[in-house]
């Protein structure tokens, strides 16, 4: 099997980027976009954000604003129509967003002699009014290089409790799960504390985010009440350590899946990533927290 390259990743993303350009006014589903690029919906949004430098949502919003800028210059359509076409329900909201990006209110922009109708972005991706797209600049891994190990893991059996709701409220689920397992002697020495995030907080509405709070258990543990048992599939994983507060885990995911992965020659399996919490947030300062992120990889050679 040929090794996948950065070019392959870019080619696949270009299919998505072209589709977005052609359907700027449509509701674009994450599954649909992921399917176009043959990425698993579990990982697509992070690969996109990591390579393009903005989330799908941000990208669409920016292109709509660029289109609005070009219409302001090239057409005589009323500003309210242009605002509506850009996806804004009110003139004020449109003006605010427009000013933030172009530095002038829409009416001023229209009458000024300045002709720049695109924003400045690293990716070089702009609104193209039907013209074909051939390339973009994938975000370069910046700053300190990321340490990533490839590890083979046996299947991991875990007791878990599912949280559905905002990501920053998962603590309540841990507060229920840990005492119940802990009083049975299931925490301490060698039990791993891990989390599986099924949805990305950037694309899923907060009330629908699914997160499993998990503790490793052996065969003797039986599911009980709200506590279920699942087995995290074995296989190869790309593993990196996130240093610091849990609120910033998203940045490390984006770097791993959007910057390291496309240059690694590997592809992801269609199962969620998981994270292992290495220290106790009750007795550790947020900046000293350590979390290992595991991204599931496809086997390199197929028989």
């Amino acid at each position, binding site marked *: 099997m040929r090794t996948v390259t950065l070019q392959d990743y870019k080619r696949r993303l270009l299919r998505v980027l072209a589709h977005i350009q052609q359907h700027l006014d449509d509701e674009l589903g994450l599954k649909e976009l992921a399917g176009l690029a043959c990425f698993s919906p579990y990982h697509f949004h992070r690969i996109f954000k990591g390579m393009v430098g903005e989330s799908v949502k941000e990208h669409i919003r920016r292109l709509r604003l660029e289109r609005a800028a070009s219409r302001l210059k090239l057409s005589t359509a009323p500003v309210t129509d242009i605002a509506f076409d850009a996806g804004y329900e009110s003139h004020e909201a449109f003006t605010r967003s427009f000013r933030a990006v172009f530095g002038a209110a829409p009416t001023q922009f229209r009458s000024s002699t300045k002709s720049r109708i695109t924003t400045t972005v690293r990716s070089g991706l702009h609104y193209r009014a039907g013209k074909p797209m051939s390339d973009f600049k994938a975000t370069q891994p910046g700053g300190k290089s990321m340490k990533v190990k490839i590890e083979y893991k046996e299947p991991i059996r875990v007791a878990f409790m599912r949280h559905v709701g905002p990501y920053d409220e998962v603590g309540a689920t841990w507060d229920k799960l840990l005492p119940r397992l*802990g*009083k049975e*002697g299931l*925490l301490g020495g060698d039990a791993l504390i891990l989390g599986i995030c099924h949805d990305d907080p950037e694309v899923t509405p907060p009330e629908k985010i699914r997160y499993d709070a998990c503790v490793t258990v052996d065969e003797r543990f039986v599911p009980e009440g709200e506590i279920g048992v699942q087995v995290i599939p074995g296989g190869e994983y790309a593993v990196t350590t996130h240093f610091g507060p849990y609120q910033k885990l998203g940045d490390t995911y984006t770097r791993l899946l959007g910057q390291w992965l496309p240059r690694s020659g590997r592809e992801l399996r269609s199962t969620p990533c998981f994270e292992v919490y*290495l220290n106790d947030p*009750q007795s550790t300062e947020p900046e000293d927290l350590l979390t290992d992120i595991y991204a599931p990889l496809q086997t390199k050679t197929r028989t």
Partner: protein
Amino acid sequence: MKPQPKLDLYKLHKAEYGATRKPALVEVTPASYLAISGQGAPGGDLFTAGIGALYDAAFTIKMTRKFAGQQDYAVCKLEGLWWSESAANFAKLPKDQWLWKLLIRTPDFIKDDDLRQAVAVLLKRGKGEDVKRVRLESLAEGRCVQMLHVGPYEKECETVAVMKAFAEKQQLGFAGKHHEVYLSDPRRVPPERLKTIVRQPVRPS
């Protein structure tokens, strides 16, 4: 119901855990610990099993209370006492002669009954016999010289030398066991960045 504020003993006794890279005199109040003793090199089988048993006991006790709605508290970091039978220079002794006692500071409201109950649960879980060696002890170290050591454990003797000179200047001599508080996680933090509080009880020489 408003949740009770979580108890963090290190924050409550800030003066005892606020060591810097300069030696200082501190008054350490009597404190209660979960403890397990042994002999041999750090990282050896007995040592590793001891850490596991200590954390097993610490979390089982804490979570049993939390489940029952009693006051929650943070499980403190690992600490250790190191000494030897012979009077020879500790650092030069073969490591298999090192004696140690691993500690986790624990609130005073944790009693022997809590420990007994946790040990019974853990034995029923098949967690191994090491947990039977966990004890609840109190230490009254009193006046100590204390200093933050940053770097690999092997270089601690340099920090100890600074502490000794500092004590001598004030007509104080080391008395009691060398005490370490492990602020960093040696599994991930590179040796040169490991932070350890070194504490040494002293008395007038």
